[in-house]
């Protein structure tokens, strides 16, 4: 097996490009998401992105706010109790970003279909409603017949819809822990990360913890993302911040509201990026920016006990640095 550890800068440089179809996981508005990876994409000035996600999250909010996103396919674009996603909403209402709406169930089916390498999946949702009739790709066709075309069950004659399946260029998937080869364990719900990891052409894991492969061999049933489909592993503790990572940290309530407020205007977005996105290179600088007190506060999570079985296999920063150097050889 190949040691796939890669710095966040190299991972974004090697696996993202302008105009690509990019997919972020788990894309949960309050939970797990590869947010640090999205910030690095902003730093490296990626643009004209076609983004696919079932939910919005602060990553998509930011990519939209900076004007990096031409199009998004999504089921839920908000931040739940933290409010509507201000950056995304600004990009959508101004016409900068086209938004194609589906349901969360439909997005899961579309990833599943992509993983199967099928052209479409039959659906009983996103039919007979505006998710079928309204298409941002074909705005002058209402009701649109090309987005979720009607199909007939060959056995019963009953009508269904056909959902276009998803095979994104790259998925950057946040996981709780991974080994250096790309075997990963996720705490909390997977959402679509299992299907997404099989549907995407390339997969980059963004892991809060790196564990020894003995941990993977101890809990093989829990290893839902496998090294066979993973291209790179980025070690980045607190990668989901200001959102949460079950078992490790809660969402940063203060920063969630603050960040969203700053995404409302271009001017404030620029100010936010200057301070919180473009102001770090190393992980030490990233941690210093969040601040020691904040790190301590969000780490006191009620979910901490979930990590108990795995602690003895978690590698230290020094061990990981050595492995990162070895990966370059």
């Amino acid at each position, binding site marked *: 097996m190949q040691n796939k550890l890669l710095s966040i800068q190299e991972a974004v440089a090697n696996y993202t490009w302008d105009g690509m179809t990019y997919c972020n996981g788990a894309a949960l508005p309050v939970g797990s998401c590869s947010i640090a990876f999205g910030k690095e994409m902003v730093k490296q000035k990626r643009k004209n992105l076609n983004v696919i996600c079932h939910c919005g999250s602060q990553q998509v909010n930011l990519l939209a706010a900076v004007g990096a996103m031409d199009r998004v396919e999504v089921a*839920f674009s908000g931040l739940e109790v933290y409010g509507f996603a201000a950056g995304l909403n600004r990009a959508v209402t101004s016409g900068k970003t086209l938004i194609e709406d589906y349901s969360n*169930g439909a997005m899961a089916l579309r990833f599943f279909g992509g993983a199967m390498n099928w052209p479409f999946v039959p659906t*009983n949702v996103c039919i007979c409603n505006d998710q079928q009739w309204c298409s941002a790709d074909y705005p002058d066709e209402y009701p649109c017949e090309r987005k979720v075309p009607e199909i007939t069950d060959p056995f019963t004659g009953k*009508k269904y819809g056909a959902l276009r399946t998803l095979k994104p260029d790259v998925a950057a998937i946040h996981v709780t822990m991974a080994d250096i080869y790309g075997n990963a364990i996720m*705490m909390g719900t*997977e959402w679509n990360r299992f299907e997404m990891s099989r549907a995407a052409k390339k997969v980059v894991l963004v892991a809060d913890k790196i564990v020894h492969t003995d941990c993977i061999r101890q809990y093989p049933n829990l290893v839902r993302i496998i090294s066979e489909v993973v291209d790179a592993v980025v070690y980045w503790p607190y990668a989901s911040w200001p959102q949460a990572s079950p078992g490790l940290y809660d969402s940063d309530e203060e920063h969630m509201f603050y960040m969203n407020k700053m995404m409302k205007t271009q001017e404030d977005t620029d100010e936010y990026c200057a301070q919180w996105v473009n102001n770090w290179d190393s992980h030490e600088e990233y941690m210093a920016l969040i601040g020691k007190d904040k790190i301590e506060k969000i780490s006191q999570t009620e979910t901490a006990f979930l990590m108990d079985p795995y602690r003895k296999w978690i590698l230290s920063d020094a061990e990981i640095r050595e492995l990162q150097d070895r990966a370059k050889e």
Partner: protein
Amino acid sequence: MEYTKQEFMAIITGREIKDGELIILGVGLSMLAGYFARFNHAPNLKPFTEGGIYGATPVGGLPWGIECNRLSANATSFTNAIDALGFLVLSGRADNAVIGAAQVDKYGNVNTTGIWDEPPWKTGHYNPPKVRLNGSGGASDISVGCKRYLIMASHEKRRFMDRVDYISSVGFLRGGDSREKCGFIGGGPAAIISTLGILRPDPQTKEFYLEAYYPSTSVEEVRENTGWDLKVSPDVKMVPEPTEEELKNLRAVDTTGSLRKKG
């Protein structure tokens, strides 16, 4: 005992939830109504979220989202969206759900996607909305698959419309048998619980009518705040005020008082 409109709405919604039901809950009021019901009268309720969190009870206050650590802290299973929204909801297995609405119309269609000056169904064009909302999330799946579901909405004329700008989650479409023609496995919305009263669908026309109103309001006030000519049940009733026990049980879930900050 004093209470807010939102608290009352959550309690009324909770009263509609039966013990033993397999129920999918969303963030905010939906979760509060569901967990209130479990504390109050439905100890065997089986709640889950659309990402597949099973067997959990919120700790430390209202969860910030359906995957918030306040809920992930004591789950019996974490699965995924294909399981929760596919195997349990779109398959027709889930009994009940509670969804929210920015706009709802006389046939129980829900809009949570956007607000237009001239909506797509009027202009024949899908232009960017004036206001982007959140999209449907899993509510669209719930509207298709759950045996029945409850809609919670703030009762205002601009929200209770003859026809919503955009159908994110299907109710009874244009009434009569129009939902049936789509072949959905689920039964559709069983009630709209608003900040003023309880509306139910007419069995034939599927148009929602006023079944009951809250002690703080009147039939006239409910009708004035409804964007269509709201029919009133001949046996229209006043909903009984929440009991102290009910408020106590609601506040045991809403420990951070999120429902007491508003209105």
